[in-house]
């Protein structure tokens, strides 16, 4: 099953390498990884998407907790949560296709954030599925895509704080 694990780590050099190195060393897979400092600059938050059996996910969270730089973590998929990923996608937009792409962007509630006579850059936010769906649906040549990796947060009053 797919799991989204949110990890608060010490914002120190090497913390990310410890987390990613652990996955490689223990043969777990990482589907996506997003990391940035939190409102407290001494802490970073890593959001990591992985897949595995329940036993494997249990080992993954235990092994992560064992890392000295890991302050706290939560498996967001254990509870109700919101998942978002941001994508910027550069599309070829010429002639009639320009109208068509704009329509698609509106349907997906995206925004065009850069325009030239032959291209659009579209910004799109949503779950990974939604971004995949847009890529599949858009009917013009894709010049480039960049995705932030999945981030997530628990619904309601639950919060990952130390």
């Amino acid at each position: 099953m797919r799991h989204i694990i949110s990890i608060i780590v010490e914002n120190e050099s090497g913390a990310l390498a410890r987390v990613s190195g652990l996955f490689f060393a223990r043969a777990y897979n990482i589907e996506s990884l997003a990391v940035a400092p939190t409102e407290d600059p001494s802490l970073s938050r890593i959001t990591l998407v992985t897949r595995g059996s329940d036993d494997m996910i249990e080992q993954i969270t235990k092994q992560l907790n064992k890392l000295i730089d890991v302050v706290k973590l939560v498996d967001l998929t254990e509870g109700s949560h919101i998942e978002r990923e941001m994508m910027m996608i550069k599309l070829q937009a010429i002639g009639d296709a320009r109208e068509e792409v704009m329509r698609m962007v509106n349907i997906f509630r995206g925004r065009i954030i850069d325009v030239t006579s032959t291209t659009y850059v579209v910004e799109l936010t949503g779950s990974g599925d939604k971004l995949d769906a847009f890529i599949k649906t858009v009917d013009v040549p894709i010049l480039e895509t960049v995705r932030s990796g999945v981030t997530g947060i628990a619904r309601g009053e639950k919060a990952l704080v130390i």
Partner: protein
Amino acid sequence: MKLSGGEILIQFLEDEGVEYLFGYPGGAVLHIYDALYQQEAVKHILVRHEQGATHAADGYARSTGKPGVVLVTSGPGATNAVTGIATAHLDSIPMVIITGQVATPYIGSDAFQEVDSVGITRPCTKHNFLVERVEDLAITLKKAFYVACTGRPGPVVVDVPKDITAPEIKIDYEYPKSVTMRSYNPVIKGHPKQASKAVDLILSAKRPVIYSGGGVVLSEASEELIEFTKMLGFPITNTLMGLGSFPGTDPQFLGMLGMHGTYEANMAMHQSDVLIAIGARFDDRVTGDVEKFCPQAKIIHIDIDPSSISKNVKVDIPIVGDVRAVLRELIGQLKKSESLSDKDALSNWWNQIKEWQKEDCLHYDKKSALIKPQFVLEKLLEITQGEAHVTSDVGQHQMFVAQFYKFNKPRRWINSGGLGTMGFGLPAAMGVQLANPGENVVCVTGEASIQMCIQELSTCMQYDLPIKIINLNNRYMGMVRQWQEFIYESRYSHSYMEALPDFVKLAESYNHIGIKIENPADVEPALREAFGKYKDRLVFLDFITDQSENVYPMIMTGQGHNEMYLSSAKGLA
């Protein structure tokens, strides 16, 4: 007090109570060595290879329970230390390894003797640090000792760039007495509710087995383990790492379990209905095929590391906590408990176990005209009265010690269990001998293993370390040969030790005593001479043993505890 980084480092070690520093100088640590030169509190042991430094510090740590401390230079100094660091990591041994690094402005420039030590050691340490400012040096060292020694112990590397230790820059130094880390709070006390569930299961057991490991040694819980086992009257088996934490000569002790464990221990595991795992981690050498592991048993698992729980084998009642604290809790609850264990069932169980013991699974040919390795170890046990500190390398000789030397005290059996590092024995014995001056320290080894760190004979000469080396010389990498015999139809691919040195002359060239023993009748006199007349000298005893001897019982890969080979003639048990 204003001190330079180099002086802070050495002063800190003194303040931390470090007795011995095992090391080897080089460019990046010269400032530190200069500070070391100007004091006497911290004694430096100069090894001949950085791997030797780490194993010696490791041996010291295993013997004393105190952290072993190492100082090596950058680049090759650090990479040579890696094998010893990984050895300590796999066996959860507290160590602090200080590695020199090129000066901060040169980091990342592929400077002379530069290597990414933090990167290289990340997967084989409990944690590691790069010191980026001299102001951080003392507190980082404190964190290193704290992390190394608490929770599930392990090695910690502190990488110190040369400019951090420069004599020109002096800052205020005060010994940091304690440190807290928000991201590191090891659990000590087990959950009392889990303990009470465990007590209920323990008291309901009809065919119980206690299976305990190195965690008992690490948490100094030997007394508690003995009390717990005695009050229940249950049979107990130890892992390779747990030997000595329960007296090897006690009638409740079934011997070691696992791949080369005793018939009775493995059969009891297989037939048990309640398994109490204490400070052990269900290693593959212990479990055999996990699918066939203890098929009827409900399992209680006590371990300080939550990630050890249900990692290899699913357990029913986990108790996360320090083994000693949890055992005390269990003993307390058992004393208060109104229900009693099933005495009749236990007596039937012991009768069954005694049947298995009649198999005499460790028998060997005592009439052989050749020296049998088992015979040497039986004589060693007799002459040292089971009181020696014994280190070993890795292979057949290691298993023979585990089977034949009955350890009655913890921290007497020093070997590389997890990583299985050949070359460990001699340098580890140096650390043990320094920690126990005047006591018998024995390194049991083979002619293959001993050559992996034989340069340390020179260190032993420098510091007058009267280690007794028992070289079980069968002219083969014995365990490799054994596997090749069983699995590869006796195609002995590169397991034959050709071009061996004359070990007697080699020992003598380092001003040690060398004795070559070729007949069974000469085994005992040679040992008596080594521990008597030559008590204060290093003695290299080169026993020319039977080349064809194998270690039995043996569980082959993919087999269960009830599927042992008891000898080559006698197939599956």
